């Protein structure tokens, strides 16, 4: 991201071109970028070395000897994980270890998200893998079996094929998360591969504020719950990716479910760290790399959640920018009309006394107001954003720009 006198550059459209978007600014805007600390991408050799020298487990070849049913859980397009690259490296290692391709099943750990079609699977996993391996989408209502473990007062059901495998691998990215501290690791099992009721439980807890601070694993009882459940089920190998500002692999930690994930989270905390901002006139929160759909755009408040309301002054302006290349998106819990946890859009308390404006060119105004409160402003064109900010701040304004706000933290 750069901020010059002639405009702002934002990373844009994850999984749909991953390009830079140039945006104009108004007269009297003093633009100040707040980038994440960031890191350079690993070389291919470094990625391979991370698998060959795992954290807290034996090497993969030793672990998979004599295993006949191997499942690999991966995340979907709402997450930035460059899964194809990692899966190719992993499959090479499994091949060296003598595992035949027909012993492997890839399961997309969807939670209640909508299943990936072939075109989306090609984006996420690559054509060769999709065409030559068995790849299935998790369904939170079918093909489930008791996991023999409770969450709250109910028994967790998990994907049956995942449970029946004799070797279980997870591949996920480790980015700040609203209630799990960081994504990835055990969270891919619950809620990722579990039944609807268990997923509802976790989301209700979050909506009630029964959560920990994003960007920290310490004293995080949700993370501890997820790890307890995943340990009970048995995870044999966990691949944790930390992506940089360009969605490249900047950190890769393979091995034990908890030990390798903790190392990844520590690295993630360093590279997503962002200078503290306070009392801005205008803050622009860009949702990249979680900008694929409107239902995920609320992730753009991640940085603000770690700083608090003081970030933007009273009567200041908050702008959310998200490409929404996949449109409104689908989330079984929050889908307008049918979602179990869908509620009529309401104002968010942490945004009170601020102008709130969404630049979401991938969705219509009608779609936008199915999700967000009528008092928030919708903009299909950037010119509308500039006009409104100029009108609300006629004497000029200090504009803080957070190019990766969905993963940036100040902790």
């Amino acid at each position, binding site marked *: 991201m750069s901020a010059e006198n002639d405009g702002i550059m934002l990373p844009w459209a994850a999984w749909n071109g991953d390009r830079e978007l140039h945006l104009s600014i108004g007269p009297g805007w003093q633009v100040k970028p707040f980038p994440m600390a960031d890191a350079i991408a690993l070389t291919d050799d470094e990625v391979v070395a991370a698998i060959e020298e795992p954290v807290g487990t034996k090497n993969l070849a030793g672990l998979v000897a004599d295993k006949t049913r191997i499942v690999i859980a991966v995340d979907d397009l709402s997450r930035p994980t460059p899964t194809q690259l990692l899966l190719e490296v992993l499959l090479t290692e499994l091949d060296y270890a003598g595992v035949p391709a027909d012993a492997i099943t890839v399961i997309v750990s969807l939670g209640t998200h909508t299943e990936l079609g072939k075109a989306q699977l090609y984006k996420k996993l690559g054509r060769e893998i999709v065409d030559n391996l068995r790849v299935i989408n998790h369904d939170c209502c079918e093909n489930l079996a008791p996991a023999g473990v409770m969450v709250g007062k109910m028994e967790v059901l998990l994907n049956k094929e995942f449970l029946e495998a004799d070797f279980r691998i997870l591949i996920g990215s480790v980015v700040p998360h609203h209630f799990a501290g960081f994504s990835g690791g055990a969270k891919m099992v619950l809620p990722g591969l579990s039944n609807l009721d268990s997923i509802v439980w976790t989301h209700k*807890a979050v909506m009630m504020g029964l959560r920990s601070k994003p960007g920290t694993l310490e004293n995080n009882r949700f993370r501890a719950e997820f790890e307890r459940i995943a340990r009970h089920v048995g995870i044999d190998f966990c691949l944790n990716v930390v992506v940089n500002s360009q969605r490249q692999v900047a950190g890769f930690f393979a091995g034990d479910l908890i030990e390798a994930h903790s190392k990844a989270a520590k690295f993630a905390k360093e590279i997503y760290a962002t200078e503290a901002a306070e009392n801005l006139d205008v803050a622009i929160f860009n949702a990249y790399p979680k900008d694929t759909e409107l239902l995920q755009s609320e992730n753009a408040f991640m940085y603000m959640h770690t700083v608090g309301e003081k970030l933007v002054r009273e009567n200041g302006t908050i702008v959310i920018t998200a490409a929404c290349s996949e449109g409104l998106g689908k989330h079984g819990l929050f889908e307008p009309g049918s979602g179990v946890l869908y509620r009529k859009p309401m104002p968010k308390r942490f945004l009170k006394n601020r102008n709130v404006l969404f630049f979401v060119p991938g969705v219509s105004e009608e779609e936008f107001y199915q999700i967000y409160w009528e008092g928030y402003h919708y903009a299909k064109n950037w010119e509308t954003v500039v006009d409104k900010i100029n009108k609300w701040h006629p004497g000029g304004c200090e504009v803080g720009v957070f190019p990766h706000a969905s993963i940036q933290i100040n902790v």
Partner: protein
Amino acid sequence: MSNKELIRSFFEPELENNGVEDDDSLLLAGIIDSLKMMDLIGYLEKEFEVKIDDDELMPENFDSIDAISTFIREKKAA
């Protein structure tokens, strides 16, 4: 006042304004969110002289007037 009345009084007038019954989900009715939840815990601890532990902070204990009332009754009886 009964326990339920004391609990309802914390949420009024929102319950009455929204026609929320004792067994309705407070979450789905938009009555409870993260900030309200923090206030609720403080209110319950003070009003009912109980100590609510972290591992009791689960949705099934707080998602309706009935659930809260049952939770408090069981806490008091323990």
